[in-house]
């Protein structure tokens, strides 16, 4: 059951800054933006000013495919304002080889299997801010 709107409004809302603006702008238009090195092609989790692999300064923002694989997940039983416990926190790895923590939606914890394929979705967490989350690919 989804938390009611007033409870969810208690959640911390990300405050985009200049460095992360492309990420949040991408989310607002429905794109998962990562960073990619023009010199060696490596993708990386933002925000980096130089490539983490080859150290080139030619790092640009690029849209990821939006796919993902469930790398790990946990169920949080601690109470935090705005979060309806228990809730899931997951580690997702994308086909581009980037790994990060995020929320899973559209599935109960007992339906989750490490290794399952996911796809990115976008969730408005306030009037101004959208964040990516992932849901299982419907087979």
């Amino acid at each position: 059951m989804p938390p009611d709107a007033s409870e969810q409004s208690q959640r911390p809302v990300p405050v985009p800054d200049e460095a992360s603006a492309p990420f949040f702008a991408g989310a607002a238009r429905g794109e998962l933006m990562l960073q990619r090195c023009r010199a060696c092609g490596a993708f990386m989790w933002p925000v980096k000013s130089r490539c983490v692999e080859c150290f080139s300064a030619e790092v640009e923002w690029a849209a990821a495919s939006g796919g993902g694989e469930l790398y790990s997940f946990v169920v949080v039983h601690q109470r935090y304002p705005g979060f309806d416990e228990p809730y899931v926190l997951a580690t997702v790895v994308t086909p581009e080889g980037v790994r990060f923590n995020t929320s899973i939606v559209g599935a109960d914890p007992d339906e989750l299997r490490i290794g399952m394929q996911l796809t990115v979705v976008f969730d408005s967490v306030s009037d101004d801010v959208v964040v990516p989350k992932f849901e299982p690919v419907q087979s």
Partner: protein
Amino acid sequence: MSRWKADAAIAGLGITEMGKIYGRSAADFAAEAIALALDDAGLAKSEIDGLLINGNGNEHMTPYLQMTLGFEDLTMLNVMSAAGSTVGAMIQYAALALDAGVVNNVVLLYADAPLQENVGGGAAYAKRGQWHGMNGLRGAYGEFGGNPPYALAARRHMHLYGTTSEQFGAIAVAQRKWAQMNPRAQMTKPMTLEDHQSSRMVVDPFHLFDCCLVSNGAVAVIMTTAERARQLRQPPVYVKAAAQAAPGDNQRTGRDPGLNTGAKRASELAFSLAGITRDDVDILELYDCYTYTVLVTLEDYGYCEKGEGGAFVEDGKLGPGGALPTNTGGGQLSSYYMWGFTPLSEAVIQARGQAGERQVERNDVVVASGNGGVLNFHSTTVLSKHAA
């Protein structure tokens, strides 16, 4: 054959009361721990010319603590910061500096006072307005504190290798047995595996008893040259080697320090420098912010194959009477949480032969680990009561 040339030793140890002690600042605890350590060593405050502080986010843990404590004429002063692994770096730096003659008597310090009366932990993390830039995503996703990322690593280990919650429990149970013999331990109530399993879920797969304590208090250690230590009050605890390792991550596939931690490289380096193998180690004091941290450290120290840590600890060998005494004061899980100074303090006590009821008979080589980040940062320190 030892390659470590610096001849330094731990000559003083001061441990304050630990736990839910309110109304005192970290600076206050620090002063007490240092006073205790000075008395333990038989040194005067005026003889201290080095002060190393483990940076931990507490507002008092800055270079200005020197003024609060009233130290003068120091030739070494620094806040060092690599999370829970810092202790080994502090020891390494102090030993090398003592050997080089740039300082004579160094205080190494950890102090914190995170617990406040009537303030729960959860609410503090979710304060709105702190969440800037990419870090804001943690607030949006509900990733608060250290529990989730460590639990994520443990869950991945369970998925890949079949490690079980009961195996984590074996670590907690063994350490509680040691804690019951430690007058300083915060938690001494007997714990069975059933107690571990029925303790409330915190972040599944971690139960309450998989997670370390929180403590207000301080620990101070005084290091000097081996020669000077022999003239002081306590049996010297010689530093045989101290090494750090930080494998890196950058959240890219091909690297996962949650599974393959810096413990491997740090222990390889420390053991090589000290001229020992893991078979020479009598007692292990391993950073244990979570039961999982102990398990993965044992794997990465090479006591068993990667993925076999669960089976390795299941028989209780870490506990009293076991083949591999580990966290013999109860560790951070059951005694007190002073980051790397928890394992270090117990290592010193055991190496000196001052552990009373919980003294491990064979105490020639004692190893203490430090761990920080999400298993990103590691340090390994080899200690011995033997000069050579």
